[in-house]
């Protein structure tokens, strides 16, 4: 299959290894992977801030960028939810409505793509560590992905998966929310991060790099001995 990568803007700039790992896994499974460099941001920050006219422009841009792509795969539940669920809402009643629905049907979150579209559970990865999984809210509740990433992780050789107490609790990121209401966002990550640290896992793994930014940022500041890691990085590992 010819896969067009959708790399979230902050992954592009701050955690490029997540994008590279995503490509590595897909290539290993025998797929052609392309990256269309005209892509930038999906427009979610503006959408969530109520600036729907601005977000609409970003959505229309994305339609153009990914025109003709067979499937689009992004290593971010949140950004994929933006394209899958919110582009159609943004472009409802416009000339782009149909194309938005079409894009939505071709766009997949990375773990979803592997399990639901390709039917792959064991990608042949090795990772001899204890990990706990964090459900990003968008992956969990907008895309309804719960078992897919766990199935992938359980198939990784040497990996021990530990569930945390607050697996489904929001980490408090919420995009600009984390900066507009930092006190609430921090209280939330204290609850989340505390529960993750108590698992005794070496890594907190998620399909949402934005949650990992928040969780990892707090864990680092607090000096907790558990590191953030994207699920693509785990699946790309062979050691």
């Amino acid at each position, binding site marked *: 299959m010819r896969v067009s990568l959708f790399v979230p803007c902050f992954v*592009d700039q701050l955690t490029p290894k997540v994008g590279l790992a995503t490509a590595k896994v897909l290539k290993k499974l025998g797929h052609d992977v392309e990256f269309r460099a005209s892509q930038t941001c999906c427009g979610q920050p503006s959408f969530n801030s109520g600036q729907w006219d601005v977000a609409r422009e970003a959505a229309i841009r994305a339609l153009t960028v990914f025109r003709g792509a067979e499937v689009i795969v992004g290593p971010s539940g949140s950004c994929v939810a933006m394209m899958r669920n919110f582009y159609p809402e943004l472009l409802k009643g416009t000339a782009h409505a149909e194309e938005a629905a079409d894009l939505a049907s071709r766009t997949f979150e990375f773990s979803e793509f592997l399990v639901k579209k390709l039917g792959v559970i064991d990608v042949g990865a090795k990772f001899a560590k204890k990990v706990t999984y964090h459900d990003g809210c968008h992956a969990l509740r907008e895309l309804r992905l719960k078992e897919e990433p766990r199935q992938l992780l359980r198939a990784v050789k040497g990996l021990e998966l530990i569930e945390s107490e607050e697996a489904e609790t929001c980490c408090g990121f919420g995009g600009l929310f984390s900066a507009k209401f930092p006190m609430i*966002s921090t209280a939330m990550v204290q609850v989340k991060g505390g529960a993750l640290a108590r698992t005794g896992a070496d890594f907190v793994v998620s399909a949402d790099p934005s949650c990992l930014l928040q969780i990892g940022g*707090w864990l680092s500041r607090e000096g907790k001995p558990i590191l953030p890691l994207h699920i693509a990085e785990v699946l790309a590992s062979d050691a």
Partner: protein
Amino acid sequence: MSDAKSIFLKDATVNAADGDQRAFIRKALGGYYTNRDLQKARYRDWEMARDVASMAKWTAVNDLANVLEKFVGNFERNGGVVHWARDAAEARAIILKIAEDANAKAIVKSKCMTSEEIHLNDALEKAGYGVVESDLGEFIQQLRGEAPYHFVFPCMHVKREAISELFTKHLGTAPTDSPEELTMIARRHLRQLYIDADIGITGANFLIAETGQISITENEGNARLTAALPRIHIALSGIEKVVNYLDDLSVLLPMLATAGAGQPMTCYNTLYSGPRKKGECDGPEQFHLVLLDNARTRLLADPEQRDALHCIRCGACLNVCPIFKNIGGLAYGTTYQGPIGSVITPHLRGLKQWNHLSGASSLCGACTDACPVRIDLHHHLLHNRRNAAKESPTLFDRLFHNGFNFVIKRPWLFAAGGRIFRATLPFLQKLPLPYMRAWMKTRDLPKAPSQSFRDQWKNQNV
């Protein structure tokens, strides 16, 4: 910044930093999850039950004029008196008039959020009536002189020591740390008050159009007593509480209990149709129902968010909300706290004043999943944000997002900007930049890589 917003920010900041209180609230709600899941598991298809419950409300709300008319006809046929109130002031005036005509002195109330909404107690007390809240949580909040913290669990934030002190101070009882004994103190204190009261005021959970009955849900038995012993019963209800059929309750009552409190059924679910009937030995001589609009029709006029009027006030969305759990119910400054409050308050009391509540959410969606009548809660927070941005845009937001858009529309500029951003990140973190400073206060950013993904990809694939 609106007054409501600045108070919110102040209170939320204080509460979010109070680790002990937050842990206390989390612990108090811990049992809720276990019980709710146990009860949900008894449903053969919970999701289907949610469909049916939401359609029962949808059908009534979208045909509100006809359903309400039918209800009122049947209610009056049963011997009740209906009063209409466009707003809070009218509702208060109606109730004061009933009390005056009846030459009443003492009033006992059972839990009714709508009465909080219209600030009824203040008005009654100012007019010289003795008013006592009979629901244990409301009674405690009345003694504390504080609004309910959670619209189902009004005093869940108060520790037993504080309740004991409160009772010692107001009721002269001996200190105790037993919730059981504290409950019995309130029970003993209120008993004679029910018997002596002239008027009992209750809310209503459902108005049943086909039979003209009102349905009241409660656990303690205080609403039962309030509607049994005084000679006048006044019920106060929003106009949206109406449903078409009595049989709708066979779904709504158990779901209300399970979603809201993890119970199979709330202890007392009571249907009233009129005052004491011929041949009945007790019950009030008069039964009044005050039907309140108070901007509910404004929400009704928004088809996108009309489903917020489906709300059965179960409290499930508060119980699962990480914002509620971390800032507490009082910080909202609203009658209805939590996600549903953040959705409807801008409609009831003004978007400009109250939109900050829609902003104060990570949009995690736990509320929407918990709602037994499928209100699209977290998406409505987005809708409120959009409406506010359109109605009263702030200059900062316009500049920030248009600036951002200018960059992301131009991939070359995005790449160049990214390069500068990464190179100067250690320096930027020290500057008092909006957003950045707030973030960096409690969290680290990852070390910026020297090359972006797009650069590495280009190099790899040359």
